[in-house]
């Protein structure tokens, strides 16, 4: 069953990326202010959505892990953090390109940009701790994820006092016709892409954990050195 889903997702993604590119460049009309530059929006916003899904997965996984101590939840959290770093990087990069076109600067210390950056940095710290934390890194990173999650509203409030120039969330409902269709197809594509990466990374984690168990018992039996 799981294999079928994975192959289905692979199929969806391999069809989806060319299709959305076609829709973005040939079907969606040019936007009247930013013209061609607006096209980055179709990948920027879905990536941002996925980044928040990933952060959410990481936070929930960490809370559940500390509570139930089931390694499965730890895998969730870890996978969530890694994908949050990946999609966050996409968001920040595409956002910069957008910013250069719209405001003529690569980076603005604007509320939404800054809070996204800070949340992303917390996720990078999570991955960092995960890799270099040594013994107890699982609890340490779970603690970091929980503190980071609580931090999100505080980051948002503190950063929001600065003037904001990022388009408000009203951009999405304003989309019309082909732009709207293209946008939501992109969102669906990114959902599929996210699920695929999540499923594969989880499978890899589980396989690695099983390998460790096998290695341990082999060591116990004296089969390997």
């Amino acid at each position: 069953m799981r294999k079928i889903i994975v192959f289905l997702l692979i199929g969806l993604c391999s069809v989806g990326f060319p299709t959305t590119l076609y829709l973005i460049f040939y079907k969606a009309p040019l936007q009247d202010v930013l013209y061609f530059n607006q096209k980055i929006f179709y990948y920027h916003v879905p990536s941002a959505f996925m980044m928040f899904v990933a952060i959410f997965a990481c936070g929930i996984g960490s809370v559940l892990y500390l509570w139930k101590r089931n390694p499965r939840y730890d895998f969730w959290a870890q996978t969530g953090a890694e994908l949050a770093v990946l999609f966050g990087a996409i968001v920040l990069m595409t956002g910069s390109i957008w910013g250069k076109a719209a405001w003529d600067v690569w980076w603005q210390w604007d509320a939404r940009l800054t809070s996204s950056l800070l949340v992303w940095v917390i996720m990078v710290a999570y991955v960092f701790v995960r890799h270099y934390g040594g013994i107890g890194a699982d609890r340490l990173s779970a603690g970091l994820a929980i503190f980071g999650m609580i931090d999100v509203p505080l980051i948002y409030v503190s950063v929001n006092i600065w003037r904001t120039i990022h388009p408000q969330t009203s951009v999405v409902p304003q989309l019309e016709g082909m732009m709207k269709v293209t946008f939501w197809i992109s969102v669906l594509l990114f959902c599929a892409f996210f699920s695929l990466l999540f499923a594969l990374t989880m499978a890899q984690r589980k396989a690695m954990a099983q390998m460790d168990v096998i290695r341990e018992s082999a060591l116990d039996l004296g089969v390997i050195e």
Partner: protein
Amino acid sequence: MNKLFNNRVRHVLELIAKDLRIEFRHREVLYTMVFFSVVVVLVFSFAFVREGHAIDNVAVGILWIAILFSGTIGISRTFDRERQYGTMRALLLSPALRSAIFISKMVSITLFMLLTQIVVIPLIAFLFDVPLLNHLGYLLLVIFLGILGIATVGTVFAAMMLFSPSREVLLPVVLYPVLIPLFIGATKATDTLLRNPLDIPVLYFWLKFLCVFNIVFLLIAVWSFEELVLE
């Protein structure tokens, strides 16, 4: 119930007294923190002073960077001492509750950090010619709230990575991103104190923000300390 509560308070007080006693015998952490803060302030002075004058509005930032950096040093050193002498295991084995251990460590680190500011704040006011001491009451409140937040989050993370091999590197990496909202609040609040006339609504907004940060993280820290610092 009341007896139990008294016991806990006694545990906390005894642990704080222990930390302070050790510190005032060696004075190692305090001296290091003070000297490190002075060095940080000097380094930043050289970076930001052009032709004999400091760039505008730079003093507040330097103050909080000095507090944050020296605080990190103090936090890791306080826990290092426990690890070095193997006393952290003894502490964890003792009948004192984990939350009592957390609160006592947090309070003693807060005290060390506050004491350090006796040197740092006048030094910055003196070097950068800023009226930091005009609203001393508010300044102390802002400094206290900021330091309390740093000590709270720092204590939890330092305790968690007590036995991690790369803790010196990891502590700032983990601590600073989480502390950024507090840092923004503290610098903004201190900044309003330098303005004439004093902008009370803005100051109160940031003071409230700092209070919320502290309350939220204190609760989470007390709750999670038990879960996170298991040996």
